[in-house]
C-alpha cells in the first residue's frame, strides 16, 4: 500500500560516496603515436596477450597511471618527460626514445652493462643532486634529442645529444650519446633560472632578472647571439631584448619568441615561413628583433615549427606563419597576426566570459586551454596527435573530450600529454 511504500522509502539506508572534504584528483592523459613508447603504456607496444596486435596510434585521450602528482610534462621528438615537485628521491620520469640518452641512462634488466634504447613505461631518471631530499624539480623541457630539467636551487640539468652544444657543455668529437651516463649541470647565470625551453637543437634559459641565455645550433640564428655558429656555453642574448625584462620565452622548432613584462613581443631565428616577415625580408634572423604588432598587450606566446601563436590580455588568440593556422582551409600563410574568432572557443551570448587562458604549440599543431578547463586543438593531425578521434587534419579549433578539467598540456611532434584535474 502507499503508506507502506512511503515508510519503506524513509527507512532505506543513505549511502555516502564522497565526503564533504573530498578533493579533486590529478590525472595524466596521453594520446598520439605510441609505437616509440612515448605514451608510457607498455601494452601498446608489447601487448599482454599473444593474439593482441600492438597499437600504433592512440587517437583519443588515454589515462596514464602515475605514482606521484605530476606538475610539469614535456614532449620531445618521440619521448616524454614527466616531473613532480616532490621531495622524494625520484622526481623525474621519462619514457620513449632513448637512443641519445635523452632520458639519461636506463640500465637494462637483461644485461647490467647496457642501457635501453626504448623505454616503454615512465622510468625514474637519477639526477646527481647534492641535496636530493630538499631540491624540487620545477619544470622539464624536451627538444629533438636532448632534454633540460630545471630545479629550484641546483640550477639546470641537461642530458642527451650534444653534437651542437645544446646541452651547454663542450662538443666532443665522435662522442657516442647512446648509453651515456653524462648529465651536465649548468649553474653560471646572472640570477636563478626560472624557465627552460628546448628548441629542436638549441636551448633557451630565462633568468629571474629577465635575461635570456642560449646555446646550441645557430645556423638559423635561433641562438640569437648575432652569429650563425654553434654555441656550447649558455651566453646572454643582446639585440632588442638587452635590458628588457622578459617574462616568457617560447620555442619548439627553429624559431623563438619572447614576451616582455610590458606586453611586447620579440622574435628571432628561422623566418622562412613568414614568422618575422613583418620586420625583415631575410629568412634567418640571428639577433632578437621587436615585432611591432598592434594586437594589444601580449600575455603569452607559443612558437611552433612553421606557425606562431600569441595570447593577449583580453583572452584572444592570434596566429601567423605558415601551415594550418586555424581559420579554415583557405588561410595557409600570413605574416601579420590574424585573430581566431572567440566563438570557436565556446564564447556566445550565453557564455560571454569564456576566454583562452593558455596556449601551446607542437611542431605543426596548436593547442589552447580556456578558463573553463576545455582543451581546443587544431593543425596537422600527424599520426593522431590531436586526440580528436579522427586521423584527418583539423582546420579550426576543435574540442578534445577529456574526462576532467585540463590544467596544462604539452605538445610534441606526434603525441600530446595533458595534466587534468577530475571534476569533483
Amino acid at each position, binding site marked *: 500500500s502507499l503508506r507502506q511504500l512511503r515508510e519503506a522509502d524513509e527507512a*532505506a539506508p543513505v549511502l555516502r560516496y564522497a565526503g564533504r572534504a573530498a578533493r579533486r584528483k590529478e590525472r595524466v592523459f596521453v594520446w598520439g603515436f605510441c609505437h616509440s613508447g612515448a605514451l608510457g603504456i607498455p601494452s601498446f607496444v608489447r601487448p599482454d596477450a599473444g593474439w593482441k596486435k600492438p597499437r600504433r596510434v592512440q587517437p583519443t585521450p588515454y589515462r596514464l597511471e602515475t605514482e606521484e602528482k605530476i606538475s610539469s610534462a614535456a614532449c620531445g621528438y618521440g619521448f616524454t618527460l614527466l616531473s613532480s615537485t616532490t621531495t622524494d628521491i625520484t622526481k623525474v620520469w621519462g619514457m620513449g626514445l632513448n637512443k641519445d640518452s635523452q632520458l639519461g641512462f636506463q640500465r637494462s634488466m637483461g644485461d647490467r652493462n647496457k642501457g635501453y634504447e626504448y623505454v616503454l613505461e615512465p622510468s625514474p631518471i637519477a639526477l646527481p643532486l647534492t641535496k636530493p631530499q630538499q631540491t624540487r624539480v620545477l619544470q622539464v623541457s624536451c627538444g629533438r634529442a636532448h632534454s633540460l630539467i630545471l630545479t629550484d636551487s641546483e640550477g639546470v640539468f641537461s642530458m642527451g645529444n650534444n653534437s651542437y652544444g645544446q646541452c651547454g657543455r663542450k662538443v666532443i668529437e665522435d662522442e657516442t650519446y647512446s648509453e651515456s651516463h653524462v648529465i651536465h649541470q649548468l649553474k653560471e647565470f646572472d640570477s636563478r633560472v626560472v624557465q627552460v625551453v628546448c628548441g629542436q637543437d638549441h636551448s633557451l634559459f630565462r633568468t629571474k632578472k629577465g635575461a635570456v641565455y642560449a646555446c646550441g645550433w645557430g645556423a638559423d640564428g635561433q641562438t640569437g647571439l648575432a652569429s650563425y655558429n654553434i654555441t656550447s656555453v649558455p651566453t646572454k642574448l643582446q639585440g632588442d631584448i638587452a635590458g628588457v625584462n622578459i617574462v616568457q620565452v617560447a620555442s619548439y622548432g627553429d624559431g623563438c619568441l619572447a614576451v616582455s613584462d610590458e606586453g611586447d613581443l620579440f622574435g628571432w631565428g628561422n623566418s622562412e615561413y613568414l614568422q618575422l616577415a613583418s620586420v625583415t625580408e631575410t629568412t634567418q634572423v640571428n639577433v632578437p628583433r621587436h615585432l611591432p604588432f598592434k594586437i594589444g598587450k601580449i600575455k603569452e606566446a607559443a612558437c611552433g615549427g612553421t606557425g606562431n601563436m600569441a595570447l593577449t590580455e583580453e583572452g584572444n588568440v592570434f596566429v601567423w606563419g605558415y601551415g594550418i593556422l586555424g*581559420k*579554415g*582551409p583557405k588561410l595557409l600563410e600570413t605574416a601579420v597576426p590574424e585573430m581566431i574568432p572567440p566563438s570557436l572557443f565556446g564564447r556566445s551570448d550565453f557564455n560571454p566570459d569564456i576566454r583562452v587562458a593558455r596556449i601551446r604549440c607542437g611542431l605543426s599543431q596548436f593547442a589552447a586551454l580556456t578558463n573553463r578547463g576545455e582543451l581546443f586543438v587544431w593543425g596537422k593531425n600527424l599520426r593522431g596527435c590531436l586526440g580528436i578521434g579522427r586521423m*584527418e587534419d583539423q582546420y*579550426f579549433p576543435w574540442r578534445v*573530450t577529456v574526462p576532467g*578539467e585540463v590544467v596544462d598540456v604539452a605538445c610534441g611532434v606526434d603525441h600530446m600529454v595533458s595534466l587534468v584535474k577530475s*571534476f569533483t
Partner: protein
Amino acid sequence: LNAAPRRPPPLHVRFLPGPADGTAAPGLVATRVPVLAEHHLVTGPRFRRLKMGAGHRLDTKASGVMVLGIGHGNKLLTDLYNCHLSKVYTVGGLFGKATDDFSDTGKLVEKTTFDHITREKLERILAVIQGTNHKALLMYSNIDMKTQEAYEMAVKGLIRPMGKSPPIITVIRCLQFALPEFQLEIHCLHETQQYLRKIVHEIGLELKSSAVCTQVRRIRDGVFTLDDALLRTQWNLQSIQNAIWDCQLKVKTEIERTLA
C-alpha cells in the same frame, strides 16, 4: 464557430410566374430568390470537423508550451519541424534520491548524501555537458569540416543537424541552487522529456550522489514562447483567433529564413 453569424444565403434569378391579378400581363417575371440548397437548415452547421495537428510531443508528467496546427497550419507544422529549431525547458531536480524512472514518483533505487555538492561543482559539470554536446552538434550536422563554408558557419554558430540525430543540448545552465533542490535551463534539439530526466540523473551520478527530476516545463518551442501560449482559462474562440493572428508573421519569417 457555428454560432457565429453567417452571411445570408446567396440569391439567384428565377423566372417565376407573375402575380395573378388582372392588371399585369400574364407570363414569367424575373425575381431574385435565395438559393434553397444553401439555406442554413438544409446545409447544417458550417464546421463539423476541424483538421488539427500536434507539434512536438509533451509527456504526461511534463508541462509547458505545445504547438497545435489547424487546417492550413498543419502544412506549416511540417515546415517548422524541418527547420530544426531548439526548444527551451526548465528542469527542476532534487539531490539525494535515485529512482527507476528518474522522476520523483518512481520506485526508489538508492538514497545518498549530497552535502558535498556546491554550485561551483555543478556548473563545472554543466560546462562539460555543454562542451561535449557542442561537439556532437558539429559532428551530426554532416558537413565536411575541411571546407571554408563549414568554418564560416561554425564561427557564426549556425551549424546544427538538419536531419535525424540523437538528442543534443545546445545550452545548459543553472538557474537556482538551494540544496537539495536545483533548477536548470536547457536548450535542446531532437530530445524527449525522458531524456532530460535521464540527464538530471546522470548529473547526480557525476557529482558522486544521485538526483531525480521533479519538474520538466517547456518554455519555448522554436518561435513560440510562454507569452504566446494560451492558458486553460483562455481556450475560447477569440483568444485562439488572436493567438493565430499574432504568430502568423513570426512563423512565416522563420520558415523563410531557415529553409531558404
